[in-house]
């Protein structure tokens, strides 16, 4: 027992590595559970937010019935899905039909092993981090393809074929954009156009290493070699929407043409697995974008606005965010209808606001404040991307399939190649110019 406690405490003393790197199984397990729970909560919140925001963009109210402002709607939906009859088409391929949602969910969740929420707040740090993320997330297309095929039905088949063609096409552009960002990790010079000058000239693929390279160079890679980094970032931002089969690239599940695409024949629990996988894949690719181009866990302007005063100003953001959410809850509580039927809902909303306010107050405690700052900024950046996903869905009409292929192969791929080559040239030229001239 004493040895066990010692084992658990040993990780807390080493304060600068991830549990995976420290080889501590207990804390790695704790982190896995935390990430899994956080992800599930995020998917539930996304479900509610997407409906509400889309509804408000279309001047509707969205879900209002279950719970105050429809807050309990996702939970009601989840219960409904679990209780629904699980249907399998008569001629379907049973084993493959059963495997497909599992492949998609496993691929979507496994990538979070390397997502860096902070310098120590990741399950583990791999030397091949970004390669691992791209590789495992590319496995999800296998699940989609087999789901469409195993349903033994025409719409899912069409959806699966479209999906595989689309995901392979956009993976190329995505990979090129990622490579040009990785190239930037090997240029150790500080500043917007800085190259060379560091102790070594090697780059890194590790997710934590990529963020640390941005910290060392003092610039987010989205702005490095302006506008090269920004172009690569935009290519990735477009390709990642296509990779996750979301509007305006949601051709594999285009409801006006294909009913629901590859998951037409799925219902109940298995359908909910596809839903879970789609949203966690969205969070995963958003965290790749945040890590590679937007400075990961770094707070805004760590160099320009440095010093203890600014550190303090930025460290109260998490608490203020939660207090603002709580204030919104209290405002809505005050505006609830004063009818006896709404009594429970009013109390519930007030209680929810109180919980949020309590979390906000806890986040002001100095010890907590210092440890959650990185997680907060990472999650805030990812949340911005999630909002963009909803915004795209609310504003852009769906592409035609030939237009989609044209964008992928004839526009994004050449631009990605050009950015990659130009980044390499900029790095070499800058490196040669920074060398002392020999005569």
């Amino acid at each position, binding site marked *: 027992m004493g040895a066990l406690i010692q084992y658990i405490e040993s990780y807390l003393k080493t304060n600068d590595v991830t549990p995976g790197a420290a080889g501590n199984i207990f804390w790695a397990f704790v982190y896995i559970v935390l990430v899994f729970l956080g992800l599930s909560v995020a998917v539930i919140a996304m479900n509610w937010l997407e409906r509400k925001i889309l509804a408000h963009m279309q001047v509707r109210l969205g879900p209002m019935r279950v719970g105050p402002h429809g807050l309990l709607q996702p939970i009601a939906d989840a219960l409904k899905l679990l209780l629904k009859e699980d249907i399998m088409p008569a001629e379907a391929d049973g084993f493959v039909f059963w495997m497909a949602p599992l492949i998609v969910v496993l691929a979507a969740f496994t990538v979070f092993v390397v997502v860096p929420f902070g310098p120590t707040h990741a399950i583990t740090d791999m030397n*091949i981090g970004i*390669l691992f993320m791209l590789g*495992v997330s*590319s496995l999800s*297309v*296998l699940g989609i393809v*087999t789901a469409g*095929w195993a349903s033994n039905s025409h719409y899912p088949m069409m959806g699966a074929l479209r999906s595989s063609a689309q*995901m392979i096409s956009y993976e190329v552009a995505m990979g090129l954009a990622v490579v040009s960002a990785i190239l930037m990790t090997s240029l150790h010079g500080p500043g917007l156009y800085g190259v060379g000058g560091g102790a070594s000239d090697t780059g890194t693929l590790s997710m934590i290493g990529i963020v640390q390279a941005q910290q060392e160079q003092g610039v987010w890679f989205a702005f490095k070699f302006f506008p090269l980094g920004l172009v690569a970032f935009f290519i990735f931002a477009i390709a990642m929407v296509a990779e996750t089969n979301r509007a305006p690239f949601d051709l594999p599940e285009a409801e006006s043409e294909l009913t629901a695409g590859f998951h037409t024949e799925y219902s109940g629990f298995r359908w909910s697995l596809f839903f879970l996988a789609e949203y966690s894949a969205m969070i995963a690719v958003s965290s790749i974008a945040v890590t590679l181009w937007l400075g990961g866990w770094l707070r805004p302007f760590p160099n320009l606005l440095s010093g203890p005063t600014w550190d303090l100003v930025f460290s109260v953001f998490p608490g203020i965010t939660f207090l603002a959410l709580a204030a919104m809850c209290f405002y809505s509580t005050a505006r609830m209808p004063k009818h006896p039927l709404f009594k429970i809902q009013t109390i519930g909303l007030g209680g929810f606001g109180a919980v949020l306010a309590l979390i906000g107050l806890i986040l002001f405690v100095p010890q907590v404040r210092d440890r959650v700052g990185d997680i907060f900024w990472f999650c805030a950046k990812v949340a911005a991307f999630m909002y963009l996903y909803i915004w795209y869905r609310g504003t852009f009409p769906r592409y035609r399939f030939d237009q989609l292929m044209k964008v992928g192969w004839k526009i994004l791929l050449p631009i990605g190649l050009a950015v990659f080559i130009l980044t390499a040239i900029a790095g070499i030229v800058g490196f040669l110019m920074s060398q002392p001239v020999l005569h």
Partner: protein
Amino acid sequence: MTPVATPFFFYLLTAIMIIGGVLVITRKNAVHSALALISTLLAQAGLYLMLYAPFVAGVQIILYAGGIMVLFLFVIMLINLERSIRERQFNKQWLIGIVAAAALGGLFIAVYAKGKTLFPAGRVTYAEAQNTQGVASLLYDPHTGIYMFSFEIASLLLLVAIIGAVVMAKKRI
């Protein structure tokens, strides 16, 4: 930190590979064969991990399991499965089969019997934290890059294959 490369994992991954490989040729349904092949390739990636080559394992997943197998499935789905199931699955080529199996088996037995003297006892391994950089220095470093030439030859081969595919797919260039 104890190494994870225990014999248990080796036997597990090898069992997955062998079972997957057998299923690839015995399944009548081509999609099932492709799925078995995917599990074989993923287990192979696990073996690379055991050999302290995480970069190769990652590339294996991204290229074979993620890219090539999706194209496989894509093509298989366009085949008329009902007709292909009715077709004969095996060719009767006993003589060549026995010769090939005996040659390969003999090779395996020879390696098993003499393996200790055939291969060098130790080799350069890069620590997990430096693996990718190690691969790069073996390929490109002016002093230690001993595999640059063979790497470029292999990429030339790929270029030839790409040009060949374009020539064959397009009737008029």
